[in-house]
């Protein structure tokens, strides 16, 4: 405990000295996110400075081993670090699928050479990664993927198409699921890494119903990949994929709790209702709308309590509990409902697309409402989630 307190003091002092002033201000737009990579963009020179200083200590990936450039912190030390970062409202030095998704997989499944090759570059933000999982034909049936990977003796040859590859047009490398055995389903999938600059790779951004998006369709035509880029065993890629998917699902389920684009700029549902609908004796003027708001708030609170209960149960050593199986389903449906309600509250002001007549907050709500429709599709549709609950948790038969 004393050591931890010492660590806190040191960290606080270091941050005080090294986190530049502009990196302690809230981001004004998503464009200011630092993703690193060969064509890294920084909102200002201090952002680069902040990344370099953090990367040098390995604190962009605080718990990774020092041998691979990580911070080598214990779980407790990392908690302290995160608390101290929040305390000064520091911006993330680096946002990275390499850190969030690939790194943990490499640490668990890659060979020594691969770890040495890729992890330090991820920590330093030198290489920006994207993930190639979904395919147009597969959808919910992720394991139905068709992207062909043939063993050509000294290299693999990849042909096929991915979809929903976030930032594929901006990424340097991709970690990718490919089919190495067409006669099997789950046991014919491998996990492959390759450079997006390889000839035959093309990424086309997808326009979504909510407008421009980070998503791309990515095409592979006779892409040659060195054989050393296979992670784990041939045809055993599904094991790695499952681990990564689990992680993705957990990230998405937090949505029901609100956050960015959830109308926070409008001061919450009830304030928005008073502003856009009007008040009567201090209450929201439309009683039926008031009732809808209360239902939403009650469900939101109940869901938050359930996530908290699950965390407490896990902490008490009772495992994550059955309740966690519903998080993805309930959180995303709740988030969708919240946006429908915001639109109901905002009337025609919630239906602007761009240009004059609407505030930035209003346009953000409209776009986020549209974007929210994807929450119950990506990372396992609500239907798939309900299947999982009914079969694995409730034990209902096929």
């Amino acid at each position, binding site marked *: 405990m004393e050591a931890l307190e010492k660590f806190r003091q040191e960290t606080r002092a270091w941050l005080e000295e090294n986190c530049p002033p502009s990196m302690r201000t809230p981001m004004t737009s998503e464009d200011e996110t630092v993703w690193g990579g060969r064509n890294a963009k920084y909102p200002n020179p201090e952002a680069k400075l902040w990344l370099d200083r953090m990367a040098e200590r390995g604190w962009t990936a605080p718990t990774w081993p020092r041998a691979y450039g990580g911070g080598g912190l214990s779980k407790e030390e990392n908690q302290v670090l995160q608390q101290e970062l929040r305390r000064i409202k520091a911006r993330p030095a680096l946002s990275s699928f390499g850190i969030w998704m690939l790194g943990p997989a490499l640490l668990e499944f890659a060979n020594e050479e691969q770890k040495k090759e890729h992890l330090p570059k991820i920590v330093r933000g030198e290489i920006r990664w994207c993930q190639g999982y979904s395919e147009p034909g*597969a959808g919910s049936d992720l394991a139905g993927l068709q992207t062909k990977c043939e063993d050509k003796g000294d290299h693999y040859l990849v042909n096929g198409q991915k979809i929903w590859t976030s930032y594929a047009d901006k990424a340097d490398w991709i970690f990718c699921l490919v089919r190495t055995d067409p006669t099997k389903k789950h046991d014919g999938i491998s996990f492959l890494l390759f450079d997006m600059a390889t000839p035959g790779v093309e990424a086309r951004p997808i326009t979504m*119903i909510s407008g421009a998006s980070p998503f791309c369709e990515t095409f592979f035509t006779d892409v040659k990949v060195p054989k050393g880029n296979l992670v784990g065993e041939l045809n055993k890629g599904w094991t790695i994929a499952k681990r990564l998917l689990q992680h993705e699902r957990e990230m998405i389920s937090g949505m029901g709790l609100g956050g960015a684009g959830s109308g926070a700029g409008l001061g919450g549902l009830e304030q928005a209702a008073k502003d856009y609908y009007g008040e009567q004796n201090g209450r929201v003027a439309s009683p039926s709308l008031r009732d809808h708001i209360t239902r939403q708030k009650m469900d939101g609170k109940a869901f938050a309590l359930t996530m908290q209960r699950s965390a407490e149960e896990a902490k008490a050593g009772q495992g994550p509990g059955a309740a966690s199986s519903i998080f993805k389903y309930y959180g995303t449906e709740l988030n*969708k409902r919240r946006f429908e309600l915001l639109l109901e509250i905002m*009337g*025609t002001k919630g239906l602007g697309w761009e240009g*004059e*007549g609407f505030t930035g907050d209003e346009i953000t709500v409209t776009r986020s409402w549209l974007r929210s429709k994807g929450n119950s599709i990506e990372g396992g549709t609500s239907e798939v989630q309900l299947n999982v609950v009914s079969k694995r948790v409730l034990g209902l038969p096929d």
Partner: protein
Amino acid sequence: MALVLTEEQQLLRDTATQFFQERLPIANLRKLRDTKDATGFDRAIWKEMSDLGFAGIMISEKYGGTDFGPVGLGLVLEQAGRTLAASPLVSTVLLCGSAVQLAGNATQRQDILSAIAAGDRIMALALEEGPHHNPTRIATRAEASGQAFRISGKKTFVLDGHVADQLIVAARTSGKENDRAGITLFLVDPKSEGVKITRTLMVDSRNAADISFDNVSVPATAVLGSVDGGIDVLEQVLDIARIGISAEMLGLVQEVFDTTLAYLKERKQFGKVIGSFQALQHRMAVLFAEIELCRSVVLDALSALEARRNDVPLIASLAKARLSDTATLMTNEGLQMHGGMGMTDQFDVGLFMKRARVATASFGDGNFHRDRYASLEGY
């Protein structure tokens, strides 16, 4: 009541179906949107629609209309809803044409109705002043000054307001905000001094505008109907628009249903077409039931208008509330069942969702109309 179409009506429906599929398919809306078209609909095609008699469908033959009546108009709107056709049918025909028909004097009718029927005049109703439909919440004032009036105030969500050749403005000549009495309708030239028009780009890629009036002078002859008595006209006009938009939404939900059903029969997952999954089947069956009920309600509402039944306000609220709710449900379900592809702009389902929400917000959403229905029924 007639919940079954006559042969003549079926013929009209077939004409409309063909017209919208061929001349105003969804691609037309995409083109207008992607080219950032300044008008927001195709004036040449509007002329074609007028030649087919769609613009004058509610206008008597005396003024060059076809006088097909509300049921006819409903059939046209339903087909327009299936292809998301952008046209001034709502602004010019449903709202302003009806207002002039109901309240105009001989000169106004002659001038305006024949121009509408010929497709030569685009009109817009400047009514709303806040984000929610509320026909009595009018702060815009028209002060009498000699033989003229001077109008000042701000209007929002004026459909086709940025291209209208003529405006109808609801302004207060007496009383205070929210009073029923004291509202007067004025015909206003949008080029008048003091009128400022800002186009607002809506999520459905249709047209609306914010319009401000700064001491705009209009002659006494610009009054449409009686001074202070505008609300009675407005309410009749709005009910026509509510029923008309419900007819459009009927086409919209039916199209999304049909498209989704086809997708379910084609798209495979886990080695089976997804339409074979019982959970989706039951949801589709429930949607089918909801839409069948919607169809009955819209047909009855159109018949009520046609027969000038005294329950028009009630059935208009029923239609608008039910179609708004069902359109929300159907587009949400349709998108979800299309999966990730439904999220892309390449697929059409997102466009239907966007239109559904704007149509819902137009002239009262479910909350507004359920409350109105209860008031009308006295509870």
